[in-house]
């Protein structure tokens, strides 16, 4: 019996050892798999030879805009042009085939080739994307437009590359709305390209305009304006240029948030004792109360399913993040660390909520909708008012790290924090278009 038990122990030990080795091995493989999943698509850019228009080399500009767009996706590894075994800007159409073996040996998977020309007042970008290994053309397109849309033309090419190679809609053609303080009194809403180019004012009433929010179809911006002497809620229609008053109750009509189907807005009104959240049809109507009581509830943001709303409230004594169902029931508090958590936004894929946390100053944090997984993304300066890119890969936010407030963007993991605004006195409250 004793001998048999000893033998069993040896076998057991061996099995445990085997299991441990297997587990360790499995972890190695698992890590390798994960690394592979995040491995970027390697792409080289060529063409975009010199093409002067109004004293500017659009070829050079096009190559730099395309490289920046593709890098920003976090999906592509854009190969440094100096690392290529040829002069990329001298490559012409139909000269690309002999380059493939060299690119292949550098493990470069794709080659994007652009060629510029003009026709009358229009500029033409002839664009082709090749898969280096097979030598096949993935797509070829001819983008035509007014030179003032040149950056947009290149953004379109970048988004087409993204869509063709990942099936995901890119954000290169998206825009960011924000508030820009022109002086001590006028705070106007501006719209700029997602990379900070082409800022344009869409309000001009010289009062305070706040909280721009794009409708899910990108055709409207909801915002609060003091133009009539009270903070009223407006809808600006980009197609018609109309500005309709959606809510003008005495007191606050503030911090709108769109339902994912674009049919409703949640917003804060101070009619009555506290400041509470209400739901109003996009076409106008009687607001329906979602919260009641003497406390503050502001900054609602719908979950992508449209079933829940995350918002900011001081009902627990300090500003904290809360979640409730869209009918106002099932209220629960999400944040418990820090005395000031504010301006939450639900991610487009639903798995995260980004908000301003107060951990060693105002910072941008992520939290899971179940309250777990708190993660701090910023450390430099004061940071607030985060807003997701439509694909959920990036976050725009306000930062004071350069002194005044400016709009910055970063990847959703907090890397590559980049300043976008350089004009005006203060730039804040960003919202990313679909």
């Amino acid at each position: 019996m004793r001998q048999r038990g000893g033998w069993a122990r040896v076998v057991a030990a061996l099995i445990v050892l085997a299991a441990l080795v297997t587990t360790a091995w499995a972890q190695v493989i698992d890590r390798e798999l994960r690394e592979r999943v995040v491995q970027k698509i390697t792409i080289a850019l060529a063409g975009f030879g010199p093409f002067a228009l109004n004293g500017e080399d659009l070829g050079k500009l096009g190559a730099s805009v395309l490289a920046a767009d593709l890098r920003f996706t976090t999906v592509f590894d854009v190969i440094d042009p100096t690392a290529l075994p040829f002069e990329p800007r001298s490559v012409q159409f139909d000269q690309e085939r002999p380059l493939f073996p060299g690119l292949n040996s550098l493990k470069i998977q794709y080659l994007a080739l652009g060629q510029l020309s003009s026709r009358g007042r229009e500029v033409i970008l002839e664009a082709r994307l090749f898969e280096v290994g097979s030598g096949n053309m993935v797509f070829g397109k001819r983008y035509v437009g007014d030179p003032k849309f040149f950056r947009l033309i290149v953004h379109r090419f970048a988004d087409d590359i993204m869509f063709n190679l990942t099936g995901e809609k890119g954000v290169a053609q998206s825009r960011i709305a924000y508030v820009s303080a022109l002086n001590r009194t006028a705070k106007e809403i501006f719209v700029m390209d997602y990379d900070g180019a082409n800022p344009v004012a869409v309000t001009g009433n010289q009062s305070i305009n706040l909280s721009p929010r794009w409708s899910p179809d990108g055709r409207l911006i909801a915002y609060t304006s003091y133009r009539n002497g009270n903070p009223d809620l407006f809808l600006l229609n980009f197609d018609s240029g109309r500005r309709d008053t959606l809510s003008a109750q005495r007191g606050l009509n503030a911090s709108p948030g769109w339902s994912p189907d674009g049919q409703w807005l949640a917003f804060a009104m101070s009619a009555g004792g506290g400041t509470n959240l209400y739901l109003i049809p996009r076409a106008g109507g009687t607001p329906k109360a979602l919260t009641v009581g003497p406390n503050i509830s502001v900054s609602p943001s719908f979950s992508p399913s449209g079933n829940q709303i995350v918002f900011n409230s001081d009902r627990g004594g300090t500003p904290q993040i809360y979640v409730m169902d869209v009918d106002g029931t099932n209220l629960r508090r999400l944040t418990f660390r820090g005395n000031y958590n504010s301006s939450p936004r639900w991610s487009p894929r639903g798995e995260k909520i980004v908000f301003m946390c107060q951990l060693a100053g105002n910072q941008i944090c992520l939290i899971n909708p179940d309250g777990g997984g708190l993660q701090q993304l910023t450390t430099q300066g004061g940071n607030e008012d985060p807003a997701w890119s439509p694909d959920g890969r990036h976050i725009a936010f306000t930062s004071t790290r350069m002194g005044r407030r400016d709009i910055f963007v970063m990847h959703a993991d907090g890397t590559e924090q980049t300043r976008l605004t350089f004009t005006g006195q203060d730039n804040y409250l960003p919202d990313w278009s679909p």
Partner: protein
Amino acid sequence: MTPKTGMRTAFAATVLVVCVFLLGCPKRPGVTQAGGGAIGPSSAAEASSAAPTATPAAPRVPTASAPRVGETPVARPPLPAEARVQPSAAGVPAPTGSPLKDVFFEFDKSDIRDDQKAALNENVGWLKANVRAKISIEGHCDERGTPEYNLALGERRAKAVKEYVVGAGIVPDRIATISYGKERPFVLGHDESAWKWNRRGHFVISEK
């Protein structure tokens, strides 16, 4: 289950796991991999929700020439500008010499501080002496915290001041309230020396 069969099961499971990993471990990614779709799923739902790229919903091109076959016109309608309206003086710090005094608050608070009641009582006295005057009480905040939360905090401060003044015998009809959140700081600066002046209830005479 005896310990022996348990062990056998464990062993079998281990072998199975090893096999699964051996079989399931795909080839390393080659540069010739077709499609390059290594990043993320490209489900039909995503594909259909994305903007059609081959046949774009052509925005109006502001040029005379119609787009030719096989071309992708790229344009964007101009953004609507707002006609200029007369700038409102509301919220702009009043010139000094106003007979009404500001009252100041603690951070994220709207309670009337004891040391502010003397100023408020003076304002009440003025309102009692000027029975036809109407006022607006503006609620303001310091720059800390988010703009949207501060709108609500400023609203609460304005209402707290109004409540005090009404409690002292002034009819509510004479008093409007408005919040400017942190949008109209009285003193520019990034520390308490500025903040303490910006957390205020500001009295504006709207009708004398």
